[in-house]
């Protein structure tokens, strides 16, 4: 790494010198391309996806431009720490995947990519509106969203059928009803209520929203968690937990529900496509009786969790234009399309051009993940991105509000504590 950035810095000096010389000599400006750049990604759950970047995309780009793209993979769950150290130290990879609300968190350390975002959107049939929720900070695109990793309902068709359900329940109430029957049959549900980083948010925020509850108003200031809507969502959650789930899910982290589902301990959970993906690979018989569905609808509609994956360029990158050029190239349909294809639909595009891409025909059971993108939001919605929102997630304020109620706290007390925490956080 050090070698790369030293090289790049030297190149930058060269560029400066050449530029100065060129401006003296005449109108033509010479720009020396960097020898190499580094892109950082979290290790993908779909190994061929990482391999495709390394062995195909990076190689093709080097062939076309002479610029080597290093692909640095960090382990699952440690990307935020790496991005933090990179941004704080102002050295390290030139580009990285950012998720969730990181574009806001690292705003000052990321460059504005609005220009290429506009071009990519135009070429790709337009962006999904909500893609901007996670990457547009103060009117500027700070990252290029390349995919959503949706969190949807994963369920066992055979056991649901046994309980009299051919289709997945459409409403939360029907889901509760089904869950009671399934638990009686020895097939409980299991939704994460612990301190993981994805599968808990994946269903608890959509549940809250679909009952009309929210943490804060669109102004980003007015705390509105203390509402009848929130109370109804909590009461529902408590019943769902007590009457349909295994006790253990209160302490689950993100791997737990995958483990429980694949070991046939539970009949339904909320997860990314990884369960079906793994089942197809390792448990083909079980894979035949797994299906995936959108989250149930509540009194105020149907919602999903926005799990954005976006590419950002660090401001310490010596040649910003070269990094932009690469992202622009990467997002071209001829490069991006095949990359999506290797992971089938695990990564759901934010560009409408891919709404009917052939990958959606590989397995019809994945289609709900496409249809869920438009109704997905970030925690804190409908308020815009803010540091307070990031802190609310890190402190598990909403997750623990539900978990405490499930563990025995009264709805009123759980809401009161969440309100106290939110008020303290949003005042800052």
């Amino acid at each position, binding site marked *: 790494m050090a070698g790369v950035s030293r090289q790049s810095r030297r190149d930058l000096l060269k560029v400066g010198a050449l530029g100065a010389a060129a401006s003296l000599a005449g109108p033509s400006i010479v720009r020396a391309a960097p020898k190499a750049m580094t892109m950082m990604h979290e290790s993908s759950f779909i190994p061929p996806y990482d391999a495709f970047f390394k062995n195909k995309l990076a190689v093709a780009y080097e062939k076309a431009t002479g610029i080597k793209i290093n692909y640095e993979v960090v382990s699952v769950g440690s990307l935020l720490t790496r991005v933090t150290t990179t941004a*704080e130290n102002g050295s390290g990879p030139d580009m990285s995947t950012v998720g969730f609300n990181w574009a806001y968190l690292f705003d000052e350390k990321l460059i504005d990519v609005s220009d290429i975002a506009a071009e990519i959107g135009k070429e790709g049939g337009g962006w999904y509106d909500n893609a901007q929720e996670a990457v547009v900070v103060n009117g500027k695109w700070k990252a290029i969203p390349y995919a959503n990793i949706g969190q949807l309902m994963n369920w066992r068709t055979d056991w649901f059928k046994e309980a009299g359900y051919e289709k997945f329940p459409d409403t939360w109430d029907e889901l509760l009803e089904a869950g009671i029957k399934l638990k009686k049959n020895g097939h409980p549900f299991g939704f994460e209520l612990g301190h993981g980083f994805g599968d808990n948010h994946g269903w608890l925020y959509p549940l809250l929203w679909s009952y009309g509850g929210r943490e804060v108003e669109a102004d980003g200031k007015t705390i509105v968690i203390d509402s009848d809507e929130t109370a109804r969502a909590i009461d529902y959650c408590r019943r769902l937990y007590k009457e349909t789930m295994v006790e253990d899910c209160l302490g689950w982290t993100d791997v737990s529900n995958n483990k429980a589902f694949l070991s046939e301990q539970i009949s339904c959970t909320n997860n990314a496509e990884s369960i079906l993906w793994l089942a197809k690979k390792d448990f083909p018989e079980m894979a035949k009786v797994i299906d995936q569905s959108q989250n149930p609808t509540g009194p105020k509609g149907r919602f999903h969790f926005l799990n954005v994956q976006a590419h950002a360029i660090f401001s310490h990158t010596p040649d910003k234009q070269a990094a932009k050029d690469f992202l622009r190239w990467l997002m071209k349909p001829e490069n991006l399309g095949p990359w999506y294809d290797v992971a089938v639909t695990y990564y759901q595009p934010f560009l409408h051009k891919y709404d009917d891409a052939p990958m959606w025909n590989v397995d019809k059971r994945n289609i709900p993940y496409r249809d869920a993108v438009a109704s997905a939001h970030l925690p804190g919605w409908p308020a815009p991105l803010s540091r307070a929102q990031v802190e609310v997630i890190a402190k598990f304020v909403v997750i623990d509000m539900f978990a405490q109620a499930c563990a025995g706290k009264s709805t009123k007390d759980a809401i009161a504590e969440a309100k106290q925490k939110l008020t303290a956080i949003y005042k800052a």
Partner: protein
Amino acid sequence: MTAIVAPADTTRRRPAFSLARWLERPGVFSWMMVGPPIIFLGMLVGYPFFYGIWLSLLNRPVAAEGKFIGLDNYIADWHDPAFWQVVINTFVYTIVATILKMVFGLGLALVMNQDFRFKNLTRALLLLPFIVPTVLSTIAWQWILDPAFSVINWTLVTLHLIAPPGPSWLGNPDLAMGSLIIVNVWRGLPFYAITLLAGLQTISPDLYEAATIDGAGTWTKFRYITLPLMKPVIFIVTMFSVIFTFADFQLIYVLTRGGPANSTQVFATYAFDVAMNGGQFGQGAAIALTMVPALALMIAAMAIYLRPSKS
């Protein structure tokens, strides 16, 4: 005789400078020995510590400039219900785990101090939980504590002592704390046992023989010989254990990440969540630093209580 004749040249000459001799001067040599550790500690402990104090006085979000806000971070902690839960959790975790480690560690050391076959092999094996990287052994515990795969639950269910699937070791807020304490005790016990064993071996057998002649029983010998002589070792090992347990991170982060419903959230995990995941360095530093006075108080109390008697 010539030896006592004064030298012909009476002018005083300073002895030629000798680096070797200069280095051997106590003033120089002692600083040479003490200097590197001081620099080392200053860089790796002192600087981060004082930088941490400075950070805790700032509103310092990640990737942005800090703004001095005095004690606001500490005041915010004071009003944060989760923070008080963290304080209680950390004390319960540290006190219960340390007492259990002390009792079982001393017991184990007393057993290991006996003569038996494969004594050395057993002593070496005893260290295993301590040697295995925490994250690895904790992942093994994750399986042990998962109701679906738990060997404990399987045994209890097979013996018809409980109905399947059995207790949720990490899902029930009360059991979760208990489970973490058990894992911590399992991991920290060898440290206690081996250190106390080393202490036991320094006690002269003569004392026990003399006591036996005086008619002392096993308990009396333990109470009046072993325990008083072991006090300094117990103090040191307990102090280390309190510090390690109080600031424990890996074990909790792997098993529960502070859940369910914050019931196992301790200082280190909460500070990490706030600073690294929440991007609030100032507040994270303030949470971490509140550990210091609490820890100092606990150690001071222990120092007074376990003070070796002057006699």
